[in-house]
């Protein structure tokens, strides 16, 4: 399971009448739950023990369950990871962020929309490259509030 798997799942339910989706592959399982506003907000990743290490009575380790927060694009535009091409990115993988902190920009018609972290935590994934076009509701970052 990698960044693209998470992204594809988020894209799959965006704009559709799906409240919850669960996908498992190998020893990993991911569950995405839509918030009441309809916006994809929380992704739950369940880390399972590898089959080879599993004791018969403990096949799923639910204590390792994590809530992840997806930060999505508010509209169609171009994603920028830094204030300008010559400056450092707002955040990198592993950066600690505070709720409300600017972590990227989506630009449409010279309207610069600051993308803010939806939660305190650490940046787990950056799903778009600098200068890439983005669609409405498309996930841009995954934040681990416990990270």
């Amino acid at each position, binding site marked *: 399971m990698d960044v693209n798997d998470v992204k594809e799942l988020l894209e799959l339910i965006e704009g559709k009448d799906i409240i919850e989706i669960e996908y498992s592959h190998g020893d990993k399982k991911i569950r995405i739950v839509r918030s009441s506003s309809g916006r994809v907000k929380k992704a739950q990743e369940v880390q399972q023990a590898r089959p080879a290490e599993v004791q018969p009575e403990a096949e799923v380790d639910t204590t390792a369950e994590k809530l992840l927060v997806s930060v999505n694009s508010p*509209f169609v535009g*171009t994603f920028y990871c830094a204030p300008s*091409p010559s400056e450092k990115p707002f955040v990198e993988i592993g950066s600690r962020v505070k709720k409300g902190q600017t972590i990227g920009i989506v630009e449409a*018609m*010279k*309207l610069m929309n*600051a993308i*803010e972290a939806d939660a305190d935590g650490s940046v787990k994934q950056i799903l778009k490259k600098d*200068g890439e*076009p983005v669609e409405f509701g498309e996930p841009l970052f995954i934040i681990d509030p416990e990270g």
Partner: protein
Amino acid sequence: MYSYENTVKYSLDSLPFIRDIIYRDSVGSTNVLAEELARTGRGEWTVVVADSQSNGRGRQGRVWFSPSRINIYTSFILRPEISYEYFPAISLLAGMVVAIVIEHFVNMPAELKWPNDVMVEDKKISGVLLALGTDLNNKSYIVVGIGINVNSDTKEYPDYITTSSTSMRLLTNKVFDRSSVLNYLYTVFHEWYNMYCVHNGFNGIREQFMRRFKMTGKQVNILNGTEKLSGTVEDIDKYGRLVLKSNNNETIAVKSGDVHLI
């Protein structure tokens, strides 16, 4: 006592819709200051005016040359009560208003390049950049930043700008009172912003914009971050997007990018 601060305040105080005027002799960027104010919850039509900017910025961090005593650098807060999808084309509204204001003073036609470049005699005369965000109360704001070359002369410009930029003074050989230009800018912006909100988006200003838009039918290249598009400009849609007919006959609505005539 005559000062730019006093004349700006006197001139804008006469406009009843302006809520607050914040003046600075020098500021990093009027947009940054206006955004700081917006985030604390300051209301629509809170206006920032500076005599100079030390860090004036354009799209993608480009520098907006902002010397003191000659030009206009201003930003203000809007809180539009319209559908979110119509927010970006406020950028086009801003360019159109600047074009109307410049035409009024210089008595020459101004041309608009998508999304909001204002050109007179094929030279850039203003810069417009907008920021969208949410404040502490989770309410949306838009900050509109406008720079207009009013009284700058070629000797004030660095070499890299002189061939591509002009000013109201260079076009007319006259010196303009910046406070009067600011007063007219806000008067016209207020009028057309209301029209934009009532008629929900670009359609409310379409006729005024399109009469200054000369790119229809022209071949263009659009550089958008890592993407490059080519095609013929067909129209601007109700969301303010540039509608292109691509070279393989596909219709594309462009939301972002630098447009270059081929």
